[in-house]
């Protein structure tokens, strides 16, 4: 198998035998649809932010294959602990478009998922989700559940103590956890090469005694395949895995960022040829009769669905101020209660 693990080249041509699931047109179409749906959401979110109707937003443009590939390999028993850039995975897991809009629109109700109730919300403090994943894995191990804790962070996250400490305890306690890195080559303005002198981010696993695997993060088949293997390994009691997914951040860091300050378009443009949607579409066209119609229908349905969700988001009435106290504790301490009343009185 090629290293980094890859099944499709940038044009969508197979580099060799595909894993079983990838020979199934249904599954491939589902993966492609999920990535298109993610990108449609992404574009709408940016549009809403630009017009002052959404908060600061982190685009996943060009990295859709990672979290879609990861989530598509997971089962209901597993728990997803994403960073702030993995909308595709959240959507696949059942988080609704409206919930995502609410979260990025600055409404805590966006984290009260109707589905995927065990999944963690977006994690803003970089790398702090990895210790949580170790804890979830500990609970799973302790309760004898079938699940695996799956945490996803960025290349910058691999510099943070939280990441190493969590990886180390996953190894030391043989916990059912899979850590994945979305290596999009940038941590805001800091390029991968300046983040660490490690040859591969996957090598950070060695210090924890865990396998570290590198995959082409723009190849949704490779990401899903690697994740499936790692999940099986964890379920079989063989412990954790670190998977580095190589991709590229095509957009700004967030809507508050201006990447032109620190990188040239010249660096960016070639990566447009390697982004994950093209190769998947080409492969569907070549191998599974994906037609112009199919494509247009898909785009239209994603657009309609996203527009409708955005409308519902924009129509939601903000919570009452009291809400900022209601969920602070299971039952409000006297102390808090009185303060809450003071707020009410203006």
């Amino acid at each position, binding site marked *: 198998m090629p290293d980094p693990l890859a099944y499709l080249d940038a044009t969508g041509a197979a580099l060799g035998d595909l894993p079983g699931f990838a020979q199934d047109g249904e599954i491939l179409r589902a993966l492609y649809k999920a990535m298109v749906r993610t990108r449609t959401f992404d574009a709408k979110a940016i549009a809403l932010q630009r017009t002052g109707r959404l908060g600061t937003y982190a685009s996943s443009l060009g990295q859709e294959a990672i979290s879609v590939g990861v989530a598509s390999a997971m089962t209901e028993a597993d728990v997803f602990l994403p960073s702030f850039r993995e909308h595709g995975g959240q959507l696949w897991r059942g988080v609704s478009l409206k919930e995502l809009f609410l979260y990025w629109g600055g409404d*805590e109700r966006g984290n009260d998922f109707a589905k995927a109730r065990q999944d963690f919300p977006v994690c803003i403090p970089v790398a702090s989700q990895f210790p*949580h994943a170790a804890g979830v894995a*500990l609970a799973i191990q*302790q309760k004898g559940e079938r699940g695996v804790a799956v945490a996803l962070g960025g290349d910058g996250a691999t510099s943070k103590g939280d990441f190493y400490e969590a990886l180390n305890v996953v190894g030391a306690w043989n916990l059912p956890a899979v850590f994945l890195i979305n290596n999009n080559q940038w941590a805001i303005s800091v390029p991968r090469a300046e983040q660490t002198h490690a040859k591969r981010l996957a090598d950070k696993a060695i210090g924890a005694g865990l396998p570290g695997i590198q995959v082409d993060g723009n190849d949704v088949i490779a990401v899903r395949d690697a994740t499936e293997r790692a999940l099986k390994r964890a379920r079989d009691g063989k412990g954790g895995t670190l998977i580095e997914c190589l991709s590229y951040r095509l957009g700004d860091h967030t809507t508050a960022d201006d990447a032109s300050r620190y990188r040239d378009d010249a660096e960016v443009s070639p990566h447009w040829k390697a982004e994950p949607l093209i190769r998947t579409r080409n492969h569907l066209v070549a191998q599974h009769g994906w037609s112009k119609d199919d494509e247009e229908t898909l785009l239209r349905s994603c657009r309609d669905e996203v527009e409708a969700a955005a409308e519902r988001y924009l129509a939601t009435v903000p919570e009452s101020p009291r809400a*900022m106290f209601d969920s602070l504790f299971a039952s409000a301490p006297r102390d*808090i209660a009185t303060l809450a009343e003071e707020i009410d009185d203006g």
Partner: protein
Amino acid sequence: MAERTMIEAINMALGRALADDPDVILFGEDIGIDGGVFRATDGLIQRYGSARVRDTPLSETVIAGMAVGAAAHGLHPVAEIQFMGFLYSAIDQLTNHAARLRNRTRGRLTCPLVLRAPYGGGIRAPEHHSESMEAMLAHIPGLRVVIPGSPARAYGLLLAAIRDPDPVVFLEPKRLYRATSETVEDNGQALPIEQAVTLRNGTDVTLISWGAMLTETGAAADQLEAQGISAEVIDLSSLKPLDRAKFRTSVEKTGRCVIVHEAPLTAGLGAEIAADLAEHCLTSLLAPIRRVTGSDTVMPYPRLEAHYMPSTERIRQAVHDVMEYA
């Protein structure tokens, strides 16, 4: 019924929690076969196994962060930080996650964890082993901070903390671990977690303290009584949230208040109590509110430690000052 020291009471409460609730799990550094450096977990790994009583790698950040994840996924982790001086690396996980997981998910995910740590000085320990930074934690919205003042309260409050559906930092005054013992029944009964405790009733002055300083505070109250001054002594017990009603009522009665804590003066928790009284009980005040605290400096090494700590004498003097105030 046997007399128990505080450390024995804590050990008993931990054992009881493990026996009562299969979701309770203990982890921390050296809590297993070693039984904890203060023996808080002595014998528990033998009784409950190495799956439920676990030695962690030397990683305070992951101890706290793992507790968050485990709590959110259905366990009731009781994690130990070996000394409060090493708890600082856990503050990020406590503040950014433990304290707000319920709130930010609007109740979907919760965080019923307990983080235990011995705190305070007076045992001639090496540097970084004598911290009392409870005020930093008491400022964090969404946390509970509890400090037991006696073996019996340690037993009941620790059970309450473990059964509480939200994160609790349980700070153990290590100077009291073996200082005294009292009858503690292993009856599985938790104490109310939000209540301050009036240790003795008095009419002239209210002394408010917590943890190990209750020793000097109580001693001062004895001496004052002999001198005809009746001091009411309150063990704050819950540092967050505060039992404001309890100490307001007391000061409204006595008109005078002296707050005693081991932590440095500036921005210590004594300030919150004094500020609360200055706002809500001003007219009842017959004298300025005095704070007798650790010095506004780094806890000295053992040779000077005694000079840092508030003494019975300094407490008594402060009471005389407020009594003589006019």
